[in-house]
């Protein structure tokens, strides 16, 4: 049972345009959501997070939106740059051990 789902395995956008990556979850006990970026041969790099009591968090070009009623979150990257090309993972935190549950990732390609 996949508790965190990223239904789009890949996404291509033009440089300078907006990239929107989506994520759905089923477990209402998740209390924090995070986005990670991963380049080949590197570990995931933390990008941005949001508490379940918020609906938006912004950090520079990155904004995460949370819709609790729909159990959906999205990451907006504006403007997209070629260096943003990577696999993006949505993850959720829960439990006293704060274990991360990851989605399967979305490969973002930003075309020059």
């Amino acid at each position, binding site marked *: 049972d996949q508790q*965190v789902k990223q239904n789009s395995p890949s996404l291509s956008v033009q440089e300078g345009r907006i990239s929107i990556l989506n994520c759905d979850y089923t477990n209402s006990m998740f209390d924090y959501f*995070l986005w990670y970026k991963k380049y080949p041969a*590197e*570990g995931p790099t*933390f990008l941005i997070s949001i508490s379940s009591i918020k609906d938006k968090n912004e950090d520079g070009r990155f904004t995460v939106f949370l819709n609790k009623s729909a159990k959906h979150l999205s990451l907006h990257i504006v403007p997209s740059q070629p260096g943003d090309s990577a696999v993006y993972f949505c993850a959720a935190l829960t439990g006293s051990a*704060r*274990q*991360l549950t*990851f989605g399967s990732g979305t490969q973002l390609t930003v075309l020059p």
Partner: protein
Amino acid sequence: DAGVTQSPTHLIKTRGQQVTLRCSPKSGHDTVSWYQQALGQGPQFIFQYYEEEERQRGNFPDRFSGHQFPNYSSELNVNALLLGDSALYLCASSFLSGRGGAQYFGPGTRLLVL
């Protein structure tokens, strides 16, 4: 400030062998979590260590065991290796008290079981 480091970077083993992977957490972090990432999937939680004890375990068999040392570094041991254990093994460190704090990942150890 050194980030999370892992060793070795790559490893090739045969079925039935045992392997030990190592991790040094980011400076100041007290908690180490281990994840397994199979090809084309997101990382899966194996277990977490804090104060040299396993705090929580994911859905992995007892062949997977670990240890945390007084300096917070950690080891992941896998016994009786199976072909399906071939994956990228990631270590992540954090503060236990950081409720929403991010976990910071190392570059991983890629294990190939033949």
